[in-house]
């Protein structure tokens, strides 16, 4: 259902939600924006250039560090209860919301479900804000997402100047906006034109057809060495990625906790075994893992590219590596090399 939220009423609406939810929205932190809980007198900050918050909102579900267990005095373990207070994330961009649905397939599985992730996901509503002016480094339309993609969202807003057009996408989302008046047909049509124009204005960054096969078949190609030559092997691309989820589990003896921290396949120590053997000893193998995971392994697993094109890795790479260029280059790889 399409509704109208006047921009003048936005703060009022957010405050009304604060009665029932802890409301997170992008606010400015130093030079960038970050999802922070709204306090009295809050000021929203939407990054006009990058659109996205610097750290993807996955951090609200999988914090950079969190305690999994506490050690008890007598050599036992105590669970840490999962957060379950109701939360609402306002202003999440469609690429980030789409990523949440992919991460769900990792954390919520039939056999094993991550209790912390699940509790937070179940307790959280996502209200998205579409990007009517797509960002420069983003390539959402290329990888099957889009500036107004609905995946993972309970409602999505389209900026129509003085008003937001609200499209409620789930029952919960409808409940959030039950007070609003319905949009006119013209308004809906106006939004729809805008949405299509936004998607159309994004160039196709690379061809995805046949990409998986190319990468699959060229596991040992010098291509990987070429694209990873200037890589520093830091964790910027993966930590800022909305679909990267790897973590490390570490015992903090002094705190008496078992914690999990974000980790990344780009670190040397990530796959280093106690024996000294490292399956991915250099930047070549690590870059291959990062790209292959997103562009072939995810496709095998859930039939979707594990990238939503948010463009953070491109924008913040300290050496200016661009995954789009890497994948364009991948198309020049030979197709019929036998898999070794």
């Amino acid at each position, binding site marked *: 259902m399409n509704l109208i939220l006047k921009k003048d009423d936005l703060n009022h609406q957010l405050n009304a939600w604060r009665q029932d939810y802890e409301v997170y929205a992008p606010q400015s*932190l130093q030079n960038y924006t970050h999802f922070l809980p709204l306090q009295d007198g809050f000021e929203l900050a939407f990054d006009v250039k990058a659109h996205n918050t610097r750290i993807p909102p996955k951090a609200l579900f999988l*914090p950079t560090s969190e305690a999994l267990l506490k050690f008890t005095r007598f050599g036992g373990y105590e669970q840490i209860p999962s957060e379950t207070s109701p939360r609402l994330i306002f202003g999440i961009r469609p690429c980030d919301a789409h990523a949440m649905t992919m991460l769900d397939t990792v954390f919520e599985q039939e056999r094993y479900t991550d209790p912390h992730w699940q509790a937070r996901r179940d307790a959280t509503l996502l209200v998205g804000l579409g990007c009517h002016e797509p960002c*420069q480094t983003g390539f959402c339309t290329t990888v099957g997402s889009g500036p107004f993609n609905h995946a993972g969202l309970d409602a999505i807003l389209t900026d129509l100047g003085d008003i937001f057009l609200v499209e409620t996408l789930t029952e919960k989302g409808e409940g959030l906006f039950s007070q609003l008046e319905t949009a006119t047909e013209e308004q809906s049509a106006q939004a729809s034109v805008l949405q299509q124009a936004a998607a159309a204005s994004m160039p196709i960054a690379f061809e995805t057809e046949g990409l998986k096969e190319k990468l699959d078949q060229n596991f040992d190609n010098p291509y990987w060495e070429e694209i990873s030559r200037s890589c*520093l092997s830091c964790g910027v691309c993966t930590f800022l990625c909305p679909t990267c989820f790897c973590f490390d589990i570490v015992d903090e003896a002094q705190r008496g906790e078992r914690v999990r*921290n974000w980790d990344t396949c780009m670190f040397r120590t990530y796959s280093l075994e106690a024996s000294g053997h490292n399956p991915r000893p250099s930047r070549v193998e690590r870059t291959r893992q990062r790209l292959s995971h997103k562009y072939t392994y995810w496709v095998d697993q859930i039939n979707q590219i594990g990238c939503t094109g948010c463009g953070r890795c491109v924008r913040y790479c300290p050496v200016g590596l661009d995954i789009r260029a890497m994948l364009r280059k991948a198309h020049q790889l030979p197709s019929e090399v036998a898999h070794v």
Partner: protein
Amino acid sequence: MPDLDALKAEAKRLLDEGVVEMIIGFKAGDTPLHPQPAFFKTVEEIDRLVYNALCQNNLATYLTRFPKTQKIGMLVRGCENRSVNALVIEGQHPRDGLYLIGVPCEGIIDWRKIIEKTGEEVISVFEQSDNTVLVEAKSGYFTLEKDTLLHESCARCIHPNPISADIVIGELLPEGDPTLAREQVAAFADLSLQERHAWFRQEAERCIRCYACREACPMCYCEECFVDHVSPRWTESGTTPAGMQGWHIVRAFHQTGRCTSCGACERACPMDIKMTYLTEKLNQDMRQKYNFEAGMDTKTPPPFSTITLDDKSRFIV
């Protein structure tokens, strides 16, 4: 700006005559604000060499990746030249296995400042001869003063000229004013203890521990970093206050007497965390206490690895 053609000609000569096997330089990036470090092995590849004020990485960080027997040519600015010297002192590459193509540096532009000033996405950037930068953005052109775009560590740079390059391309620049860096440290030291701590905490606690600062730093070449050490675990592993602060405290301290104030750590940080106020404090201390600046030659080891009995007067507390 140095003459790019002269740079390329020299680079081509080095490869052509077999003086070096590879040249580390920059090539145009895939995005307008990010030229990429590049490794040129053939004369033909040199055509893609670029050098401009947006080249933000310290190329010396790549040096330790290559075998010590390899003959390497490298484009060096003032700070990179000194980083190379510091690495040579620490035995990371023999100096005679290197050919340094020096470029006097007018300062590195912080791409974030361009975006901040234009307020929109940038399509291309041209440096102009009158010390301005012409930025083509979505809505039109902006002319920006280059001095306002410089990265902080470049704005207070003391040694913009390569000091021991094998060849220098371009006119040497006047030395920078050493008081700027000193004043900056002094200004911070003048704040109250609580203010200084509040600043430190606010910076450190945005850290996500991606270690881009470590990887971008030429002097961080340890096989195993102290944070990766498992037993004993030196600092907390995650993004707890102790973990984040511990990382920033020790990362900078490990650079004592080795840091060349290039600022690559700060430029690499995805969270815009300030770090040079820490390293600069240590650099100033080294200057004052031991009259030492890192990388000024390839012989003098840093103060922490020179121990003399002359120190004894300082023992009287």
